[in-house]
């Protein structure tokens, strides 16, 4: 008996390949997969780097994300501690192994207890480092792995994300090319998350409410230096 795979592909092919010479189709497909043309990039994101950072922050705030700035990585622990204090949150959080964060002097910023590794669902607060930011929609791009476990993006109630200002780009396409540079063409890490604001649901009478299954609040610390 013919497998479902062959039956499905065969049925499609009986139409798509009906023209006879199939080499043109093969060429077109290979070409697209290899060169991945960009299409239309909205003008609103094509700005100078400084304006891109501003647009990113504006767009993030428009989707109920709070944004803070620090001059250098050394100031990140204090910024985290301040945020937690201002929001009456415990000085304790979950974080992966990202060097840019792990090497910081957390102990100097007050009694901050850092728990390492993925989240098991019992963490109120998670801290991550983003791979980049997309100004067009105020979107963060997060990569899975030991450095920034995906569970930290979703299980804690409060998610604090550190983002280097220099990693903010205008559009999604610009970050895809950086993902390709890091992992190789056609390769992806297990999970790439685009995060645009804290979790929400409109399922009760079509009214948007924050804090569905993911974080109720999202705070971004932009490292300007």
């Amino acid at each position, binding site marked *: 008996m013919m497998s479902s795979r062959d039956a499905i592909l065969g049925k499609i092919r009986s139409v798509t390949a009906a023209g006879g010479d199939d080499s043109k189709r093969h060429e077109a497909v290979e070409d697209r997969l290899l060169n991945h043309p960009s299409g239309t990039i*909205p003008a609103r994101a094509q700005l100078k780097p400084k304006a891109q950072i501003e647009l990113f922050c504006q767009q993030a705030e428009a989707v109920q994300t709070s944004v803070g700035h620090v001059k250098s990585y050394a100031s990140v622990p204090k910024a985290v501690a301040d945020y937690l204090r201002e929001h009456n949150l415990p000085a304790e959080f979950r974080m992966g192994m990202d060097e840019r964060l792990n090497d910081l002097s957390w102990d100097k910023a007050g009694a901050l207890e850092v728990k390492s590794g993925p989240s098991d669902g019992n963490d109120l607060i998670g801290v991550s480092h983003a791979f980049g930011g997309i100004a067009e929609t105020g979107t963060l791009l997060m990569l899975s792995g030991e450095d920034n476990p995906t569970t930290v993006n979703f299980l804690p109630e409060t998610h604090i994300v550190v983002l280097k200002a220099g990693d903010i780009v205008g559009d999604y396409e610009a970050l895809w090319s950086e993902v390709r540079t890091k992992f190789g063409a056609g390769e992806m890490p297990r999970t790439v998350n685009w995060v645009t604001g804290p979790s929400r649901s409109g399922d*009760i009478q079509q009214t948007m409410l924050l804090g569905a299954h993911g974080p109720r609040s999202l705070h971004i610390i932009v490292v300007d230096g």
Partner: protein
Amino acid sequence: MTQIITTSNFKSNARTALDDKNLQKALTHVERGFIGKRRSAMDALPEFDQLRDNARDIKNHTLENLDLYLEAYEEKVTKSGGKVHWAADAEEARNQILKICRDVGAKTVTKGKSMIAEEIGINDFLEENKIEPIETDLGEYIIQLRGETPSHIIAPAVHVLKEQVEEDFRRVHTHLPEARNLEEPESLLDEARKVLREKFLNADVGITGANFLIAETGTSVIVTNEGNGDLTQILPKVHIVLASIEKITPTLEDVSQILRVLARSATGQDMSVYTTFSTGPRREGDPDGPEEYHVILLDNGRSNMIGSEFQDMLRCIRCGSCMNHCPVYHAVGGHAYGWVYPGPMGAVLTPSLMGIKDGGQLPNASTFCGRCEAVCPMRIPLPKMMRSWREREFEKHLNPSLQRWGLKAWAYFAKRPKLYHLAMSFAIPVLSKIGWKKGRIKSLPFAGGWTKYRDLPAPESRTFQQQWAQREALKQEAK
């Protein structure tokens, strides 16, 4: 929840829906919740229409080469350590899922929102096989508690009022204190979050749908606002992606083009909160993520649409915009359509997948006002395809003779614009006589009444009105 297909009863379903006071109240949220928001999102992006053209062209190119892209996709999934299972129909897909679940001794399965899961009726099937499926999208969870099916493709519980959700939560969450206050929508959301958090952490298998499958990288993409899809796919040991073959999109760039029109058309957001790209199972050194990654690639009638006059329908990205703007949907809601896919997209897709005999009444659930095509981000010619189905139904003589007569008249006028305009002016008095009221639709053609839209109807819809005027007048005479 037993899935009963009542597509061929559109007429009586619609009548029941029009008399349902709760439903009529809930349906006002469709217009309030979606139309204005889409408009502002669109106005804020000058390139929106250009992106729609691009999105259409990308999907057309993909469909013309679907076999090649499917093969490229499969190769990539396999390379990343995942497994692709090809399913010709719903039954094969159900059995593949069951086998994967049984292989890991699964007792509970969490589910992200998936219309394909509804299409193959996986929940009933798992239950019959002693595996508990748990819907995790808030809307899906609500209707699972109510034993219902979704009435909208992106807002499955749009037909349910807040007070009804409270009743359901009190009925089912009996372990919580009776005196708790659930008046505010926030408290309902909070309760669902707590109850479902437990389920997420304990599930053995997570099933999600996919908005896109990317051939370039072997990646599945889900788009959610709640984050439920993510918890569904990163916490359990096994992640099953359930997707139909037309979800294939060539590259990351192509998906990004289409994503720019998806959320804007669906909820009026510039981008949904979570857009997640998953490729294979957990990698070496990954501290989380599933150990197994399976993709069920479902055909279920779609390959027959390739090369047919309904091929364009395979561009659909399930944004829901066509139903959000449909006067018939506004009047009767999604359940009247009798199967998984409601509104204009359902009226075309359902007969394409189920056959004309079962789904053939749906293309008549239209006023041919043309709004669905005007708002469709993928520029799918929905009215044209509904007309094609109607003509086929007519040829097969599946319709009552009067209706056929009406269609003949309709076809006659449709081809002669001048004549039909003239006829229109005669028809108006007839229309008012049979209850053509301003404002909301009071009743539907097949529910024995007449329809009216708020905007000026497109020309083609007038010919349809004409047809109905003729038909109704004839009926009156026959009495």
